[in-house]
């Protein structure tokens, strides 16, 4: 199994397609799914640097998935990709669940930048001789 650096969960097929294209361009090792449970499973298997999670209206589904991902893979960073930025900011506590947020529609380069930054942090973390909390 090739270890994915990024997993993405979005139930919209158009967004899944776009994400896969972006991952391909950026050479990002990835796994993409539209199913919540599968996403949590993938997080456990791959321990990715970043999980991109769609948050829908109400926000609970995506946020719960993110929390579950954090439980199975605590080092995975969370990026919410949402059309409801306001709702997420209002309802999710950064202390409880640290996250970044990109609103749909988004700029490809901004997304790639975020992915690379997360992978970079993980890469440094996994360097031999790494001292915790160096970033």
């Amino acid at each position, binding site marked *: 199994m090739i270890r994915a650096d990024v997993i993405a969960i979005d139930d919209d097929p*158009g967004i899944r397609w*776009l994400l896969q*294209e972006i991952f391909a*361009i950026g050479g990002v090792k990835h796994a993409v799914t539209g199913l919540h449970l599968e996403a949590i499973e993938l997080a456990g298997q791959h321990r990715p640097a970043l999980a991109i999670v769609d948050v829908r*209206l109400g926000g609970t589904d995506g946020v719960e998935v993110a929390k579950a991902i954090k439980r199975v893979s605590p080092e995975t960073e969370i990026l919410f990709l949402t059309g409801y930025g306001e709702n997420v900011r209002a309802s999710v506590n950064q202390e409880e669940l640290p996250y*970044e*947020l990109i609103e*749909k*529609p988004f700029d490809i380069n*901004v997304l790639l930048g975020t992915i690379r930054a997360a992978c970079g942090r993980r890469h440094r973390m996994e360097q031999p001789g790494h001292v915790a909390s160096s970033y």
Partner: protein
Amino acid sequence: MVHRRITSPRWHAFQDSLAACSGLTLWVLDPQGDVIATHDPRGNLAGSRREPADESRLATYLQALPSLAGCRDGVQVVHGPDGTPVGVINLPGGGHVALAESPVSPFPRESLPACRPPVDGSDFELRVKSIADVYHAMLRADEDMSETGRPAELLTGAEQLNQEQLGMLLDAIRHAALVISTRGTLALLNETASVLLKGMGVHVAVGQPFFNAGMSGSIENGVRLALAGQGFEQDFDPIPGRFLSWTASPLVAEGGVVSGCLLMIEDVTESALLRARARDWEKLVIAGQMAADMAHEIRNPLAAAIGALQLMSGRQAAGDAGLLQRLEGELQRINSILSSYLALSHPNGSARPVLFDPRRPVRDVLFLLQSDANTHGIELVVDLPQGEFPLCAGKPDALKQVLLNLARNSMEAMGSKGRLEIRLEDGGHEIAMTVHDTGPGIPNDMRRHLFQPFFTTKPHGTGLGLSVTRELVRQMRGGVELSTDGKSWTKAVVRLPVADAVPQTLEPANQQHEYHEGPDEGQREPGNGEGRT
């Protein structure tokens, strides 16, 4: 508490006529000042702590009622613990009848006037619900007396009653109360009723014909039906600017003979307006929810399409770049339209209000308006004052939305030619934003519906623009007025209080940050960006 339905036919007839009445609470008190019975709106007679009344005692009481007419002790007003005035009449036979606009607890028995000893020492129990009820009982009893040889034409009771006393009692009623005789004359009315009649342009005095005096037709019909004994009519009768809820009940004697009509009118304008506003609000909330759902659903394909275009522009020859850019720009525009609808899904707004220069949001939407104006062939004239300008408190985006709504309405109304003026003025304690168009104006019959959600004259309109506009302006503690000559112009004026006139709970320091909307702002919220530890 014993609840007991009294079944005597006479009591029954009495009660039937009470059932439709609303208004006063009536107590009957024994000579010791104890409240001795209750009568609830469903017509149940409830006994109190003592044994419920037996029918012979009730009969005694009913016989005591007509003597009210001859009561010379006068009506005295005492006050309940909360200050509610209570009118008290001494019953010549002992005990009291007391009336108040609302239940009084505990009953101010210590303030009761002294009364003569009871005739028979009875402590019958009774409580009925309206001054009109007493009056009716009096009429009933008078009629009984006529059977025993005493001349008692219906109105005699009223005429016998000390007018001053009755007036005081009736005037304590919040509702307008009128009694109309079978001859169609006004037998009795209270202060509320005479004010209301005056307001309605109805000029009729006691003893004069009630009908054709200018009262609304539906009320007159209700009274006629009641006088014909056809139950009672209850309706909601809007007169210009007022909403009236009224009840016309026949006063039915034993054997089904109608002896008059009791007309109770309540002015429910305030509550009707409140209800209407609540309905409007509900519609807005539903619309906002729909918009939010829709916006999210559309944002997914939109995001995919914009992403696809970005990918494509990286791969295409330079010649196509302009076209692709244009296409992406249009998709972004769809997104900004969606965002504006999304803003409506939070009518209370999740963003904090800030202090802002109202000229900025106006300037921000000008380019959008200019392109619309160009498309429509409309001349756009903008007058923004230079130099110092007062700040407003609220959400700059809301003001943008307001201006967009008003200006687009104007442009749509003008069609393919005309002149749209947008002006911002410093009015000292408030600022005024005026949107003036040279469109066809607004017909008279539509003006009152303008701010109702989903009211639209456009084939594809949502009918939300003005209602949303008003809500947004209200949230900034301002007001919006529309004026029109109905043929050649319409003017909308939005007034917002300047920030100095608003309690200072806002933080001017945040103004720049919260207000400014760079293209990347959405992705750079404090707390989730690069600065995270």
